[in-house]
């Protein structure tokens, strides 16, 4: 169960982002560390959406932030466009050279309203990024770009020129955040719970917009959410995380129709309308997540896993391949 390994990485020309052996630790108190992300590896192909799911505290946001190097990971590598002439290993870059690649990775967050500067007009907020990253931001090219992205997310550019964020609803503010990110023409858009704070009716609007933006601008998405249905809907591939470790990774439909990791099965069976592919009894699990300061030995999931044995306590499972695009880290996976 929740384990390590790199066999899930693909040998492919078209990888845009490769995260390898990512570790993020936060020192707390005296000689203690929070093991927020521990030896996590995955890659994302150009144009693909990778979903990351898992319970609160499993390290989803920490992973996202480590990718954009805020803060930098404790160890591991984050490579943009591996193998191409644009290849950049972010953890090795500093100062100006890191600043130069930053626009290639943009992020949007859960709380759309507080992530926008309340004192500025919305159009200026969207222009802000261009102003920072490009010297010719006031040129006609940039102005046209701002209008275009605002229109693409369904915000009237003229209205945006005279209004501030608080005059827009939460859903509209999330559209504005998307426009701001996309204006910079990033390769990768990292979305951390982008619809979690929104009403269900607005959620579909935003998810459809993300899908449209992906098509239109050839974006690659990293999509973080604790909502399993939302993640399946937007993702081509999904990673399930538990306590800083990878449990299972694979093509979205494969993972949902034949979940192999007991934790994936727990999640699918606990959903308000449980997935038909699991049994209600698969949901049986305690509430208490172990502390990431003292994670369990061996497989970190073993204290909650119904199938755990001595082996699980002694040995950390390595990621193994189950199908063409289906990988699991568990000593006793459910085989479809």
């Amino acid at each position, binding site marked *: 169960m929740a384990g390590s390994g790199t066999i899930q990485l693909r040998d492919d020309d*078209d990888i845009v982002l490769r995260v390898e052996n990512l570790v993020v630790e936060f020192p707390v108190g005296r000689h203690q560390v929070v093991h927020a992300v521990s030896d996590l590896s995955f890659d994302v*192909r*150009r*144009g*693909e*959406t990778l979903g990351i799911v898992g*319970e*609160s505290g499993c390290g989803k946001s920490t992973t996202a932030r480590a990718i954009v190097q805020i803060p930098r990971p404790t160890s591991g590598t984050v490579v943009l466009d591996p193998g191409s002439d644009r290849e950049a290993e972010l953890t090795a870059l500093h100062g100006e050279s890191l600043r130069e690649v930053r626009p290639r990775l943009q992020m949007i967050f859960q709380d759309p309203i507080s992530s926008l500067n309340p004192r500025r007009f919305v159009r200026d907020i969207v222009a802000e990024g261009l102003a920072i990253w490009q010297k010719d931001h006031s040129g006609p090219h940039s102005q046209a770009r701002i209008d275009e992205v605002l229109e693409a997310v369904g915000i009237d550019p003229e209205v945006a020129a005279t209004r501030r964020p608080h005059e827009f*609803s939460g*859903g509209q503010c999330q559209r504005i955040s998307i426009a701001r990110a996309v204006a910079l023409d990033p390769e990768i858009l990292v979305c951390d719970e982008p619809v979690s704070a929104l*009403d*269900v*009716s*607005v*959620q*579909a*609007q935003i*998810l*459809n917009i993300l*899908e449209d933006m*992906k*098509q239109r601008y*050839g974006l*690659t998405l990293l999509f973080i959410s*604790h909502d*399993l*249905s*939302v993640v*399946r*809907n*937007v*993702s*081509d*591939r999904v990673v399930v995380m538990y306590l800083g470790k990878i449990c299972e990774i694979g*093509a*979205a*439909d494969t993972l*949902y129709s034949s979940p192999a990791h007991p934790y994936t099965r*727990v*999640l*699918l069976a*606990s*959903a*308000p*309308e*449980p*997935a*038909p*592919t699991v049994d209600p009894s698969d*949901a049986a*699990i*305690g*509430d*208490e*997540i172990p502390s990431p300061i003292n994670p369990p030995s061996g497989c970190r999931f073993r204290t909650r896993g119904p199938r755990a044995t001595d082996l699980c306590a002694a040995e950390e499972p390595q990621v193994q391949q189950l199908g063409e695009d289906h990988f699991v880290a568990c000593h006793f996976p459910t085989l479809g």
Partner: protein
Amino acid sequence: MNGTVNGQPLLSVTDLRVGFATQRGLVRAVDGVSFDLFAGKTLGIVGESGSGKSVTAKTLMNLLPSYARVEGSVMFDGRDVRELAAQKEKHFWGVEMTMIFQDPMTSLNPVKKVGEQIAESLRVHLGRSRKEARDEAGDLLETVGIPEARKRLSQYPHELSGGLRQRVVIAMALACSPRLLIADEPTTALDVTVQKHILDLLDELREERGMAMILITHDLGVVKGRTDDIMVMYAGRTMEQADTATLFSTMRHPYTEALLETIPRIDMPSHTRLVPIPGRPPDLIDIAPGCPFAPRCRYSVDACVVECPSLEGHGTAHVCACHKPVGTEAGIAARAANEQQGTTPTGLDMGLFEGAGSRSGTGAGN
């Protein structure tokens, strides 16, 4: 609305209206809501943000600010709840009728040990001694499935996880054996696993104690398996109300249908195009005449803009407020006509719904 139980409903709400006088004008937060709830049953209230779910609950709980204007009647077991409020009856709320909120910290005192918080309610309302109250508090924490319950009595709320905190709040709510428990988004902030445990727990407790429950949520999936009846609210009004099975098998209101279609389901293949509900709910200050959903509705006809539909019966215990109900001849024709036109009488572009439900084109992953 509930025909399955004999005798009197425990709670009977009739034509409830709640307005807030604000600087901008009167906010009609609840605008003519009626329902009955029988002992041992669960009513689900669903609807978008701002539809009046919490205001309805707070009215029942006598938690509205003093500038709220309330009309209509709320009867609890033959007693007029608004009169109890006027008489400042303090052994009613928290005893016979009680409420839990989305954020457990709303109900918890951060600087007081959880054991003391539960015991206090037992002493005040039920006149228990200190020792008795403390013992009972421990029993209650066990009842709600808190591991090592006795040890937790001397912990502070911040020392507990979100799920455990919500269990403590449930224990507090149960302390005086309420007959009605109102749960307002009790699990929205919690992980799916914890959410399931809390909802299972509430179910069990209701069953064991014959308690009635109102479960408020914006998630139709949550109410689907856990309620006897559902009321769908929009702009402070009841749009549709039925027993849960009927509502899901033969929903009549376009808003109910839209809410259901807009949510991705876990068994939908990846990249299934979602059906958005275009636009947003109306401003509750200047509510236009006609149906409040008309500007967003795929079924709307000219009459919808001028004439407000009233609640009408559709079979036993199923009511719906709509001129062109889903699945009826009139509804099917109205939607088809709008599709043909490409737009609705309110100017809604029917193209917004095109391609919905199909798989959208994807990137390299497929």
